[in-house]
C-alpha cells in the first residue's frame, strides 16, 4: 500500500478504534453508565460550565479531583482518561507559555534575560488545568455514554426532532461510509502497485472523493425510499426510553448544581 491514501486507512482505523474502545467502557457497569443519559449529559455539562467559570487554581483543581472521582466510580481507568485528554491541554500550555514572562508581576526567576512572573506562572497553570478538566469531562461523557443514549437524551430534552434525527442518521451511516471509504481505498490498493507522486495522489483522492460523493447521494435516495417505505408521511416518532430519575441521578444533578453555583459565586463575589 502506498502513500497518502494508505494514511487514510490508518486515519479511519484509528478513529474507529477509539470509538470502539469508548464503547467497551460505555458497556461496563459504573456510576455514570447507570445514570439516565439526560442526567449524565446535563451534569457533565454543568461541571464543564463550573470549570469554565472559575478563576482560581484551587477551584479548578477541585473540579479535576471531582472528575477523577467520577471516572473511578465509572470504571474508567484514570490512565486512559489522562492519555485521552492530555494532548489538548499540553498544546494549549505551549501556546500560552509566553504569558509566563509577558504578564506583569513579581519576578520568580530570570531566564535568558526575561523575567518569569508569578502572575504569569499562575495563569499558565490555571489555564492548562481548566482546559485539561474541560477536555477530561467531555472524554468522560464519551467514554461512559453510548451515542445512542446521547441521542435519546437530546430527544427527551426537546431538541427539535428534525435535528435529532439528522444527527442519529448521520451516526448510523457514518460507520457504513467509513467502511465503504476504507474498503474503496483498500480495494484500490489491492489492485495498485508502485508509488504514486503528488499529482497521482491528488488525482486518486479526487477520484475517490468524487465517486464517493456521488455514491453517497445515490445512497441517500435509496435510504429515503427505505424510510418512506416504513414511516409513511409522518415524522419519525420512536418509542421513548426515558425512565424515572433515581437517587443516584438526583445526587449527581445536585452535586453538579452545587458545583456550578459555588464556582459562580466565587468568581463574581468580590
Amino acid at each position, binding site marked *: 500500500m502506498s502513500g497518502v491514501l494508505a494514511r487514510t486507512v490508518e486515519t479511519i482505523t484509528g478513529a474507529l478504534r477509539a470509538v470502539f474502545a469508548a464503547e467497551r467502557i460505555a458497556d461496563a457497569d459504573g456510576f455514570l453508565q447507570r445514570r439516565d443519559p439526560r442526567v449524565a449529559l446535563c451534569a457533565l455539562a454543568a461541571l464543564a460550565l463550573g470549570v469554565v467559570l472559575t478563576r482560581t487554581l484551587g477551584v479548578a483543581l477541585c473540579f479535576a479531583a471531582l472528575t477523577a472521582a467520577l471516572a473511578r466510580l465509572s470504571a474508567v481507568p484514570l490512565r486512559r482518561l489522562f492519555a485521552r485528554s492530555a494532548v489538548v491541554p499540553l498544546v494549549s500550555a505551549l501556546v500560552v507559555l509566553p504569558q509566563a514572562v509577558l504578564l506583569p508581576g513579581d519576578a520568580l526567576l530570570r531566564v535568558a534575560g526575561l523575567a518569569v512572573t508569578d502572575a504569569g506562572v499562575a495563569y499558565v497553570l490555571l489555564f492548562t488545568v481548566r482546559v485539561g478538566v474541560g477536555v477530561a469531562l467531555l472524554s468522560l461523557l464519551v467514554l461512559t455514554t453510548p451515542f445512542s443514549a446521547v441521542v435519546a437524551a437530546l430527544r427527551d430534552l426537546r431538541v427539535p426532532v428534525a435535528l435529532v434525527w439528522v444527527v442519529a442518521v448521520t451516526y448510523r*451511516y457514518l460507520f457504513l461510509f467509513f467502511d465503504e471509504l476504507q474498503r474503496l481505498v483498500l480495494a484500490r490498493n489491492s489492485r495498485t502497485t508502485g508509488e504514486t507522486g503528488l499529482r497521482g495522489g491528488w488525482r486518486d483522492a479526487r477520484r475517490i472523493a468524487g465517486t464517493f460523493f456521488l455514491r453517497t447521494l445515490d445512497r441517500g435516495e435509496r435510504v429515503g425510499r427505505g424510510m418512506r417505505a416504513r*414511516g409513511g408521511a409522518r415524522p419519525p416518532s420512536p418509542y421513548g426510553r426515558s425512565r424515572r430519575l433515581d437517587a443516584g441521578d438526583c445526587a449527581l444533578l445536585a452535586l453538579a448544581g452545587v458545583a456550578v453555583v459555588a464556582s459562580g459565586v466565587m468568581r463574581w463575589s468580590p
Partner: protein
Amino acid sequence: MEPVIDARGLTHAYPDGTTALRDVDVTIRRGERVAVVGANGSGKSTLQLALGGLVAPSAGEVTYFGETTDAEAVRERLGVLLQDPDDYLFNTTVREDIEYGPAQLGLPRERAERRVAALADELGLTDLLERPPFRLSGGEKQRAAVASVLAFDPDVLLLDEPFGAVDAHYRARIRDLVTAHDGTVVLFTPSLDAVPEIAERVVVVDRDGTLAADAPARDVLTDRDLLSDVGLRPPTTVRLFAGLVDDDAIPLTVAAARDLLDDARSALDPQRRR
C-alpha cells in the same frame, strides 16, 4: 377477490435514460401469493419500487385497494422490503429498526415489544438486538431487514430478494413466516428455487422490462422454452425431472421430489440398476 394493487401501463426510465420497465400491466388480488421473476437487470426491483409507490413511474398508474392512487395514503398497509438491507436499516440499533414500523403506526409500546421479541426469536436476532445494524454479517443484516418489515404486519408484502445472503436454516424460517402471513405476498427474485414453496402465481419480466408471462406457478416453472427465452433457468427439481415424468407430475418443491423418489426407490437401488 378484489385487487389490492392494480398497475396499468407502468413505464419507468431512470434519469440517465435507462428504460427499466415498459408498459407493464399487473393486478395483485387480496390474499394472493405471487412471485415476480426475471433475469438480472430485467426490472424487478424497479417494478417493486413502482408498485410500492417509492418511485414515480414515468408513465402509467398504480391503484391501491381499489380506492386511491396515492401510495402515501395507504403506506402502513404496504410492506416494501428493499433489495439492499443497508438501505433499509437506518436506525442506531437493530431493536430500534424492528420497532420503527410499529412506533410509526402508533402501536402500544408493550405490544410492539412482544412482537419484536417474537420476531427476533424466530429469526435468530435476539442476541443482536442492541448491535448497530452495520456491525452484522451479510445474512444477519438481511434477517434484520425481514424482521423490520414483518414487524408492522402490513396487508401487502412486497419483498425484493429476501433470501440472497441467508443460510438454508433461516431461509426456511423466513419462508414459514411469509407463508404464515395472512395478507398478500409478492416476492421478487431472480432465482426460481424458492418460488414454488411460496407462490402460486408467477409473473415473468423479460430482459427488456416488458411482461413475458403471468400464469400459475406450475405452468411457468415447467415451461423451459419461456424461461430460457427470458434468460432464466427452471428450478432444480424441474431440471431433474423434466422429460422423465409428465409435465404436470414434475415435482416443484424438494419435498415433493423426495416423495417421488421414495416411491421409485427400488429403481434407484444400485444393485438393481445394472
